[in-house]
């Protein structure tokens, strides 16, 4: 029993060391953002010797190079609209596929599986060209609309519904409810765990996506926060690490808060994806 206790403590020590390594880049990011430029390029300690808000002041003042508030507002619009769009189209389609006589159902299901296997890079450039032709570049449309095709999301909700008893819904119909009432009062509450998880995963994906937005958005004030920070990283004149880390903190903070809040749902998502 004693050796068991000792090995537990040993494991916790290892876990702490690993945790320190994982947290190091994040701590570096936060602490460097409070260092002045002279200190940050020569610094050998994680914690700042002189705490300063200078970087944050400069970041928020310089609205021509880094319109951070604008970027955050853009991101809010794109992520919320995209997530809502995906969830609505997915729930409707998944319900129909699981419960209603959809013509060509087998064909649709096979198409879904193929679409999941083919990497999205294959569709990026033709789609970019289409948006260019219709004048959709530098608008929110190319960032929002493709979310409507949530293949994975539909597949997961569909699978969940298949395993879920349909007696409750049938009872609802017998009681004289119409299909929308059944959908809203019976189906949505029962698939809620999948929906919440998928909503968070979609949100994170939209918030963090880089390649696709970098193709369709080039105007500074139309960028999302992730794209904006990328422009700063690539910017030649941006040589102050403190300022760089301040902008990164601003970009990471919202998503980290949501992550901490949604952690339980995201973890649950891994059980749902049904990989055995």
């Amino acid at each position, binding site marked *: 029993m004693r050796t068991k206790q000792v090995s537990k403590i040993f494991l916790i020590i290892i876990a702490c060391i690993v945790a320190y390594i994982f947290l190091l*880049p994040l701590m570096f*990011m936060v602490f*460097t953002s409070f260092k002045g430029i002279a200190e940050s390029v020569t610094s050998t300690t994680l914690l700042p010797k002189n705490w300063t808000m200078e970087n944050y002041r400069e970041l928020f003042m310089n609205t021509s190079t880094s319109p951070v508030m604008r970027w955050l507002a853009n991101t809010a619009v794109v992520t919320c609209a995209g997530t809502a769009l995906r969830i609505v189209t997915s729930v409707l389609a998944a319900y129909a596929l699981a419960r209603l006589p959809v013509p060509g159902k087998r064909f649709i299901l096979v198409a879904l599986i193929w679409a999941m296997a083919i990497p999205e890079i294959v569709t990026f450039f033709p789609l970019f060209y289409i948006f260019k032709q219709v004048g959709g570049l530098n608008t929110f449309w190319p960032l929002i609309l493709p979310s409507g095709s949530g293949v994975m999301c539909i597949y997961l909700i569909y699978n969940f519904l298949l395993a879920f008893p349909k007696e409750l819904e049938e009872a609802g119909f017998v009681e004289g409810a119409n*299909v929308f009432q059944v959908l809203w009062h019976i189906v949505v509450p029962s698939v809620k765990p999948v929906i919440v998880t998928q909503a968070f995963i979609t949100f994170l994906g939209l918030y963090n996506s*880089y390649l696709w937005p970098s193709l369709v958005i080039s105007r500074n004030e139309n960028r999302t926060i992730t794209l904006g920070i990328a422009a700063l990283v690539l910017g030649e004149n941006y040589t102050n690490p403190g300022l760089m880390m301040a902008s990164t903190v601003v970009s990471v903070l919202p998503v980290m808060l949501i992550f901490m809040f949604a952690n339980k749902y995201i973890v649950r998502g891994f059980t749902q994806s049904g990989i055995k």
Partner: protein
Amino acid sequence: MKKKTTTAVLFVLPFILFFMMFWLIPFVYGIVMSVSKYSLVKGNQGFVGLENYIKVLFSSSMYNKSFWLGMKNTVIFVILTTPFLVLGSLALALLLDRLPDRVKGIFRTIYFASYAVSVTAVAAVFVWLMKGNGGYLNNLMLNLGIIDKAVPWMEQQPFVWVSLTVATIWWTIGYNMMLFVNALNEIDTQLYEASAIDGANFWTQLKYIIFPGIKNVFWFVLMTTIIASFNVYGQTRLMTQGGPGETTKPMIMMITSTIMDRNDLGVGSAMTILMGIVIVLCSVGQYYLTKEKEELR
């Protein structure tokens, strides 16, 4: 019955429209572009058959050179990252599995948290951690006397590969770990206890209980990791811009520069399709790998 079909059609219709507009049509369009002379500015200039593919695969054009260089760089990246991302994440999951329940959740969240940040943030942080001149790591090591000259982590090979690999592992290992954590949860704990009574050590358990139990997840993680590493773009774009030279310019960066800089949508599409084929083959391989194992059992 007829009313039900109408409802069904109305319900799938929004998705079908979005799927066609933003997946199916671009997908088919991409194939059409790959067999045409196509430019961003001039549009379609006619059908050319397999000429673009021949240009990319066989001829001694600059496209051929960049395709194979991009392929080589991508494969190097896959080989460097995959072992750590698969075996490392398994090790982390095994560590978590053995921790007391009370602290398990905290450590799981810490190890997984880095997955929530964007590639942009990863790049910004690691550039300033690793930068040869003024980077934190060099400052620290110089100060401690471990090195007496700054290491060019971001400027010279093979150090640049090390930086990219470390950044990628830090960013994505948590995802694989979560998949393994779930798989390990499904193993019956009585098996561990019974085997411990029989005197089995950790390695015997790993071989006879753990690995057979998580085999399918293991192949899944391996294949998805290879595919994800094959799709590398952000880290190289933002951390190294493909440099030094073109040594860290992966496939997707070659494709974007073919299309955006050289204005050749046709050849770029052919490259994309070829890359897509490689990735689909990986998925198909994983499918058969897990399927066959199941039948053998």
